[in-house]
């Protein structure tokens, strides 16, 4: 949802490419009006659930139960924020998420940029094989149990690396980055070589500084992916104090609907439904940091994606 609304908002703001010198025809003006209206409506649709959850997080549990909360908090209440903030487990998970995201993004960026740079060199022998190996994993994978056995036999279970490494090279990101590198002017590298730079130097001092746009985009992609990931953690981690906040949140939300079947309902004696209020508070606290990242990388984000895909 976050990605979607971010994109639609931004495309709403980007100035429509008016034909230079041409006067606005009636049709074009109508189109602009319609376009703006449609995008505003879509943006609002995307924003609505977000706003509701935000409102719920500040509302009293009673008001939520009665279905009175839609856009604005009813029965203003900060108590739940206080309660969740005092939950030790929440902060442990939160810290884990931050660590996994930072480490994961760093590792992923190192691996992806270096790999992409290599396979962007057309003269490299065996380049096709390297690309093939990567692309192969887009279509086939070992499946759940073999993957689990792999991670577990590598001794990665119950470590941060089980969460970080499996997602470290996203083939999609890799290919975007590869085509970006391919489009850098060849002459720059040649000039650098003549001036005595080796491949590491070219990569570190010429290519990377010129690729800020795509790098920022990839950092965003990776960090959002790591931040939101719960499945790897669910599979490979068995200790509460290693769980990321997403897993904590998922458990909380599932706990709220335990009575979905009779078997579970009967267990109701040991669990009390977690109120919508607590869920909302946890959700808000969980997404706020990653949402805050967006405005800072927004400008890279738009130009970066365009550069990687269209140009060339």
């Amino acid at each position, binding site marked *: 949802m976050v990605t979607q609304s971010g994109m639609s908002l931004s495309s709403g703001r980007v100035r429509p490419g008016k034909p230079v010198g041409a006067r606005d025809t009636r049709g074009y003006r109508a189109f602009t009006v319609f376009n703006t209206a449609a995008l505003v409506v879509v943006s609002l649709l995307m924003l609505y659930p977000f706003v509701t959850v935000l409102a719920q997080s500040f509302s009293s549990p009673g008001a939520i*139960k009665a279905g009175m909360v839609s856009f604005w908090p009813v029965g203003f209440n900060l108590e739940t924020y206080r309660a969740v903030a005092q939950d030790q487990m929440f902060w442990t998970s939160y810290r884990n998420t931050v660590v996994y995201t930072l480490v994961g993004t760093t590792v992923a960026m190192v691996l992806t940029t270096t790999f992409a740079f290599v396979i962007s060199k057309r003269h490299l022998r065996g380049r096709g094989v390297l690309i093939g190996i990567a692309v192969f994993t887009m279509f086939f994978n070992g*499946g759940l149990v*073999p993957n*689990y056995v*792999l991670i577990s036999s590598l001794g990665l279970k119950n470590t941060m690396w089980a969460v970080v490494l499996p997602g470290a090279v996203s083939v999609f990101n890799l290919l975007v980055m590869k085509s970006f590198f391919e489009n850098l002017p060849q002459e720059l590298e040649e000039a650098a070589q003549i001036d005595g730079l080796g*491949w590491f130097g070219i990569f570190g001092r010429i290519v990377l500084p010129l690729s800020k746009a795509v790098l920022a985009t990839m950092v965003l992609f990776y960090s959002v992916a790591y931040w939101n990931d719960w499945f790897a953690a669910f599979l490979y981690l*068995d200790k509460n104090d290693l769980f990321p906040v997403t897993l904590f949140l998922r458990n909380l939300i*599932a706990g709220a609907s335990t009575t979905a079947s009779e078997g579970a309902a009967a267990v109701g004696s*040991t669990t009390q439904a977690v109120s919508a209020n607590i869920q909302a508070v946890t959700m808000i606290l969980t997404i706020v940091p990653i949402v805050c990242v967006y405005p800072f990388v927004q400008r890279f984000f738009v130009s970066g994606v365009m550069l990687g895909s269209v140009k060339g």
Partner: protein
Amino acid sequence: MKRDLTPRAHRRPWQLGTAALAATSMLLLAACGGDGGEEDGAGTENTEGSMSGFAADQQFKATEPVDFSILWTDWPDLPIKDSWRIFDEIAERTNVTLEPTNIPFSDATEKRSLLISAGDAPDIIPLVYTGEDAPFVSSGAVLPMSDYVDLMPNFEKYVQEWDLGGMIDNLRQDDGKYYMVPGLQEVSVPVFSMILRKDVFDEVGAPVPETWDELRDALVKIKEKHPDSYPLADGFEGQSMLNYAAHAFGTVGGWGFGNGTFWDEEAGEFTYAATSDGYKEMVEYFHGLVEDGLLDPESLTATSDGSTDELSEKVANSAVFAASGASGTVVEFQTALQAADPDAEFELVQIAPPGGPAGQVVEPRNFWHGFMISAEAKDDPNFVAMVQFLDWLYYSPDARELLRWGIEGETYTKDADGTITIDPEYSLDAFNINPDGKTDLQKDLGFSTFLAEATESRALKESYNSDQFVEYMDRVLESRTPREPFPPAPLDDAELEQASLLSTPLKDSVDTNTLKFVLGDRPLSEWDAYVTELEGQNLQGYLDLINGAQQRFAEKN
């Protein structure tokens, strides 16, 4: 070529990238399962730490300190803490240190399957409901527990004392063994039944209904007095009400529909529940209620997602006076009624499921969740000690009390006639007991968790439940007969798959049409057409499959 400016030596480091991709070889590692189940009682020579002559009701204590790993499901509102007293106390009494592997409640079953399939499961796998062992039988990933029950004196004693032997036999899989041992319940009553506003029933002069016909009469009277209301509602998409009503009509339905088969005692074979006369009668009955505006049609269709909020609201607004629910629902209704009007006077009771044409019948007696043991544990030198320990933990009266109430003399006291009283210092919020206590038995000390509910005597059940629930339990036990359980018809792997291919579309048709008939979207005159539709979905083939399995099992055992 102008590209050949590249010095060769510089290329090499980049080739390292390939190493990272060597991971593709992982496919080869998919090996799971074991060879368990062939040699009977194998592993019984692994007696290190076990007690010789361990007998029922005796304190188990390993002769040397041992560690056992255990799968532990984590509820969001009850996160496990290493500091929990329960682990220390168990270690002190038995010399056994439990090492939990945490799995979040949200996806507990998936994670459990994964761990078992990957051969990575902890020794002890608790929280297994009856039938959940079936998928792991053929892989041999879990032990056939029936081979080891002779190591479990407490289990054998209480199976006999509580007359559960016949039900144990129903747990057997196709190979005649059972792979999980269940939690034993001295008494079991339906968790869900009907909750009603007794004051409103009294007001119109209707008695607490003992049968569905009496209920109908009462609803008619209430409707006269409150014409704008729908006096009856379900709140669980009809699934709950059909479940407990079906037994009274001599069939199965709703949550209890299971695989849809119903044992016909006279014919000695399984028939399909949803084409039976009993089922038709039940559908007709509920259709009658809907037609006369006595049953809230919205409550049968609105998705509940397990929340009773909407229903509570209707109860609070006096739009509904009787609804399905469990003891927890009573509290929810109470809260809602009080929230709507702090001075409201009302009386909510959970009543025994009404009887019907089939008599005052309720669901069959139940086991509760039990445990499985991972196949690898059999090679553990402490294997026998592990089985003895589990027998003590799950079935001995001392352990049951420990798991529920904690430590006698510290967290609770027990007087001469066995009445348990919680120490004023402690609380048990989950059951609203002594809420002023400083330390919570459950959240702070780890007692009264899922382990506590597995095996319970009647007295223990009564010790922590509300008076209202105890009353309900007594009422059900004295006035209702549990239906006889069906004979087992365990399927082998290929049959299981075939059965689910056949039964899923059948059940979908049944669910859809049941709702249509009840709501009046499809006239009951089309009942025969509906039966023909089901037959067109190879109903007979499905029944033959089940009946074949039943006969095969009966011959073998």
